[in-house]
Structures are given as C-alpha cells and as structure tokens.
C-alpha cells in the first residue's frame, strides 16, 4: 500500500504502521501543509525565457518533494496528472511556463479533475505543446482537439469520431499565448491585461459557428466544449479506469469500471475516486502483488528514500555541477524519464516496455543519485531489500545477493532485483 499509493517505498514510515488500513489512511492523509512551488521570475526577454538549461533545479526540487514522507498520495497523483496531460519542455521551450503548469497541476491534483481539465486546456504550455496557439477559425489545427479526446477525456475506442475531433478543434480556436511578439495582439484583442506568457482569447480567431460535438449541437467556446466532454460517461470511466490501473496495477472488470466511472462523473472529485479505488478488494488481493512495473522515477525516489544519509539532490544552484545530480540527470535522460519532458504526448514509457535491456541496464545509472559511498549503510541482504520496501523476496534473490561479499555493492544489486523492478 505504501509503495502503490505514493512514490517510492518510504521504508521508515512503514515501521510505524500496524495494518493495511493504517497504511492506506496514512497514505491518504493530506493534513500536512501543501508544499509551495517555487515561482520562477517572469522572463523579461526572449533569451531569458527560452534558456532551458536551468531545468535541473526544478527537477531536483520535485524529486526531493517525492522523497519526503508527507502527503503521500499527492506525490503519486501529481506525477500521474503530469503523465496524463503530458507536456514537454522540448517543444514548449520556456521553463517558466512549465513551472506554472506544474503549480496548476499541484493545485488541482487532489481536488477536481473538472477544474484540472479546464485549467490544462488553456494552460500556456499546453497551448504551445499541442498547437492550440495556431488553431484558428481560419486555419484549424486539430492537434489539441484530437489528443483531448483520445488521451485526456474519452480515450481511444470510446465512441467518438473524426467529426467530433473537428468539432472539438473548432471549439478550441482563438487562444493565444502572450509571448514577446504578442503584446500588440493582446491589446488589439481586448486583452490588454494579459501579462507576459498569459494565455488570452481572441474572439476574431474563434470559430463562432454551431458545431455538433458528441451529439450536442451548439456554438460552444472551449470551456463549454470541455463540459460536453465531461458530461459524457466515457470520460469519467476512462479516467477512473486509468487511475485504477495505476493504483491497483490491473485492469478493472467492466462492472467495476462502470461503477467507478459513474461515481467519478457525478462531480469529478479526485480523492473520493481514490478512496473508492482503495476500497476495492482487488487492491489487496494476491493478484495485485507485483502486478505493475515500477517506473524509473518510482525507482529513483525509492532509492533516495532507502538512503536517508544521501544528500538532497536539490543543492540549489549547484545541481548542474554536483556529480550526484549530473549522474542522476544522465540516467533519467537515457531512460526517457526527465520530468517536464515526456518523450511524447502519450506520456512516459510504462509497463513491459520498461523491461528491455536498455532500460534494465541503465536503471543502475540511477545509483549515481546517492553520491559517494559514505552514505551507503552496510546491510545484509534482507535489510537492504527492506530499504526498498521489499519484505518477501524469493530465496533465489537472497542467495544471489549473498554471493556479493562487498555490502555496498550488494546494496546496488538489491536495487536491481526482480522484486524492486515491480510493485
């Protein structure tokens, strides 16, 4: 429960738990204050705005947030929504915007999917990433409209057509981002209050004609169209199923998916959905044990939690030069798991795609994040595995670990066991 409902394994928190229910309750406890997201200064010129080499500190900050033991479910949900609404700095190009998006995701991660969807649809990073800024009544760009249906709301194969993609795209026309070449446009559009890099709406670029979206004919603006999608039962079911798969590790049966979807669709409140999922017997059934492949980011966080003496990777301002941080970023990059930079709109690679030779080999590169040997405690095989939240390793795993006599190297091997590869 501790592993599934948070990021990493929080080995020290486990010690204080005496039952599954206690573990669930502790994971869902959001009473500790929410972390403040460091706001980056608003860029004052294009060169400052597009310098993305400073991405190290925000990533390291996020990793340290995941390492900490408070608000455990939030850690998982923030990552889940980042992956769901995948947006990459490789295209957005403005770190300031990516951090704004991150703050927005955090603000809604545990509260309302409805609010989150609305916020993402006009989020400046998203408008750039999925070409919303070039989607106009006069020249339609269907990138956002298509992905919004396929990835954000209804999901593939859940009853929409190319006509719906067109209708959604037409409904989302007219949004721009106030980058440095836009202030005149913002003034002309009657949005003089739009600050640097704010999104703003230009009625003249919006397709005002009626369109039929999922059987509803109207002339909706973007929020109106999103509400049509939210009203469709497919949206609630798709998102609820995805979160179920994430937390339980298996697909829900059809009846469960319908039931959870119906419940979620009533108000799109996130935590009640999480509570409904964790109340499912499937979560604690044997079939759910080691049913999911741990992602590199889950493994990295587990590694840092396993070694409390390892220095924070967020050594402010020095991240780029710190060998541990350099090694960590190198490994994340080669694994395709750089935060704020998913490889594509489908998000980060997941599942058995993470079990290829490239991923398994370079997974060991994450050990760099621990820094030098001083932080590594010399533990026997079972204690080393316990640091990763593994208490039921196979005899083969233990015997293989014990073949390595250097205890620090044994710890490195424990990180590479089949048990740690799964959750």
């Amino acid at each position, binding site marked *: 429960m501790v592993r599934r409902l948070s990021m990493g394994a929080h080995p020290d928190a486990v010690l204080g738990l005496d039952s599954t229910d206690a573990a669930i309750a502790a994971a869902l406890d959001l009473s500790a204050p929410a972390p403040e997201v460091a706001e980056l200064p608003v860029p004052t010129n294009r060169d400052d705005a597009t310098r993305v080499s400073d991405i190290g500190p925000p990533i390291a900050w996020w990793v340290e947030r995941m390492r900490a033991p408070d608000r455990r479910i939030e850690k998982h949900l923030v990552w889940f929504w980042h992956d769901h609404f995948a947006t990459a700095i490789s295209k957005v190009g403005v770190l300031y915007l990516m951090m704004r998006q991150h703050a927005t995701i955090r603000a809604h991660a545990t509260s309302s999917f409805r609010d989150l969807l609305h916020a993402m649809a006009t989020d400046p990073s998203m408008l750039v990433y999925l070409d919303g800024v070039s989607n106009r009544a006069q020249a339609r760009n269907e990138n956002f409209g298509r992905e919004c249906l396929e990835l954000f709301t209804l999901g593939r194969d859940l009853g929409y057509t190319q006509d719906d993609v067109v209708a959604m795209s037409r409904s989302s026309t007219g949004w721009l981002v106030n980058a440095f070449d836009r202030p005149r446009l913002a003034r002309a559009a009657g949005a003089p209050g739009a600050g640097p890099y704010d999104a703003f709406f230009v009625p003249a670029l919006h397709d005002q004609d009626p369109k039929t979206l999922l059987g509803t004919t109207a002339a909706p603006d973007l929020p109106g169209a999103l509400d049509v999608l939210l009203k469709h039962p497919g949206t609630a079911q798709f998102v609820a199923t995805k979160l179920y798969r994430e937390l339980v590790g298996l697909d829900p049966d059809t009846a469960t998916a319908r039931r959870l979807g119906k419940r979620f669709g009533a108000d799109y409140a996130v935590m009640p959905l999480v509570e409904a999922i964790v109340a499912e017997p499937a979560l604690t059934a044997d079939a759910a044990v080691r049913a999911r492949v741990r992602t590199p980011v889950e493994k990295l966080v587990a590694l840092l939690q396993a070694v409390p003496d390892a220095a924070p990777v967020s050594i402010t301002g020095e991240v780029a030069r710190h060998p541990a941080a350099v090694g960590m970023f190198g490994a994340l990059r080669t694994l395709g798991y750089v935060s704020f930079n998913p490889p594509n709109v489908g998000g980060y690679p997941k599942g058995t795609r993470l079990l290829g*030779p*490239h991923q398994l080999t370079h997974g060991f590169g994450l050990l760099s994040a621990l820094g*030098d040997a001083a932080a590594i405690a010399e533990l026997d095989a079972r204690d080393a595995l316990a640091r990763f939240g593994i208490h039921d390793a196979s005899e*083969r795993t233990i015997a293989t670990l014990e073949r390595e006599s250097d205890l620090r190297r044994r710890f490195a091997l424990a990180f*590479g066991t089949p048990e740690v590869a*799964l959750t």
Partner: protein
Amino acid sequence: MTGDRKFSDGVTRRRFLTGLGVAAGAAGWLGRYLDGTVGFDDPLAGVSIGPSPSPALLGTGSFSTSISDATGLAPRLPAWVGSPDDLLAVWSGFAPGRVDPAALTGRVQGAIDATTSARHELDRMLGEGRDHAPSPGRAGASRGGAYPGGAVELLTLAGELAAAPDAPRVVYVNGLGDFDTHQGLQQRHPALLGAVDDGFAVLLGAVERAGRADDVLVMTVAEFGRRPAENGGGTDHGTAAPHFLVGPVVRGGRYGEPPTLPKLDGIGNLAVPVDFRRRYATALRWLGVEPEAVLGVDATPIPALAR
C-alpha cells in the same frame, strides 16, 4: 515538409520523428516499423547511437537500445559500485534457467536473461565490426578531429554494428554535427559535410570489408533545411535541404527537381520537390515492409535503389 509553415524546431521535429502529417503523438516512424515486425523479440533490432534511443525508434510494442560509445550497453556507475561488468555478472544470477512467462516476476527474470545476452551480443558485434574497421589515422583523422564525438566517431560505431554478422536492422545515428548554421555558414558547412563524408567512408569501408556492402543502405534525415537568403553570415531555418542515399545499392543521381531560386514561396523558402516521407518510404521498402502500413499515407519510394 510541403505546406508546413512552421519552423520552430519542436513542431517540425515531432512531425519528422513520427512521420505523421498530423502529429498523433506516440511512436516514431521506425518504432512503428519495429512494432510491426520484430516486436519485443529482438531488443537489438533497432540501435541508436547517442545518449538515448532516438524518438524515431521509440515504439509502443518494441524495445530500442542506444549506445554512446564502444563500451556498448553499460550504465554509468558511481565509483563505489565498481565496474558494470562485475555488477551485471552477479545480477544475471537473479534469473533462473527457466521462468514462468505468465507471471510478471517471470517476465522480469526473462528480461534479465535477455539483457545479459543482448550485452554480450553487442560486445561481439562491436568487436567483430572493429576487425573490419580501418586502421586508426586513416579517413577522418584530419577533418573529423575537429569535431570530437562527432560524425566520424559516431559513424565508425555505426559501421561496426552494420558490419557484424547479425547486424541490427536499423542503426540510427543521432546528431552528425550542428548544421544549424545561422553563423559562419561558409566555413562551417564544408567542414560539417567533410566530416560526414569521412564518416561515410569509414562506415562503407567496414561493411565492404565484411562482405556486406549490398546489405546496407545509408540515408540522411533532418527535420529542417535552410532558406537561401543570407541572414548575417549564415542562413535561417527553412523547409528544404538536399539529402543523401548512399551505398552500392543506390543508383546514383539527383532525384527531384533542383530548387529554383526565383521560385521561392512568400517567406523565402525553396519549394520542396520530394516530401520527407518519400525518403522514409524508400527506407521502409528497403527494409521489406509496405510504407503505407507504417506511414499511414501513400508515399512513393524514391526510385533510386537497385533492388
């Protein structure tokens, strides 16, 4: 990229990597080829040379592997862990001889086994390929030396893989130099192309010595070209650029009409005589699949291949 009026690197890059007219996210064009042919069965069917697998090679139903140098598939480890070989030798013990593929734990154990094999296989390829490599100091030493870690080094690695008996189906070399020549174009461009030329010589020499020259097609790709007008010592991003198909299997010549300077589009771009997906189609046909099945559009291969 006919009809595309966007030149920001990110936008064109995604179209370019997926090969899809309307970027529908997910897999790269060669990743989709791997998905539909080898699947998860051969993790070395697509190998990138660079720090991570090229997005063009990323599929949803296949693995891809990347190597940065001749050490092959090896993690960078902190000093206290010791050498990758020593670590991974013990690690292979987590996989028993026979595993239960129905259970996910069995899949992981099988994957540990497959990883051990793939590492050895890569080392063997790099070793045997090296037997066919030219003696040091020949091609590329002079011009290539100006770009350490550049075209010649990368193409030498590619040549070693391509010359091996069980060569990967696709070797994708990332970054043959910084061709984004806004400045100093007259000096940089000849040097950049010279390094690529030297690298091709090394690559083709290696496969020829291995008796595999007729099995190898070399193709260049890039997500943008340059505009012809000068903008202060260089040129700006544009829609078109010349590209190469190289190898004994290629019928030499120029394919596509040469660009006409008086016929630029409204913002100074050369007309695009050959859509980039026709090059993809050429490579896919060479690899033995129907281009349309991968690209989703009917792109005609360039009629340049002898078979």
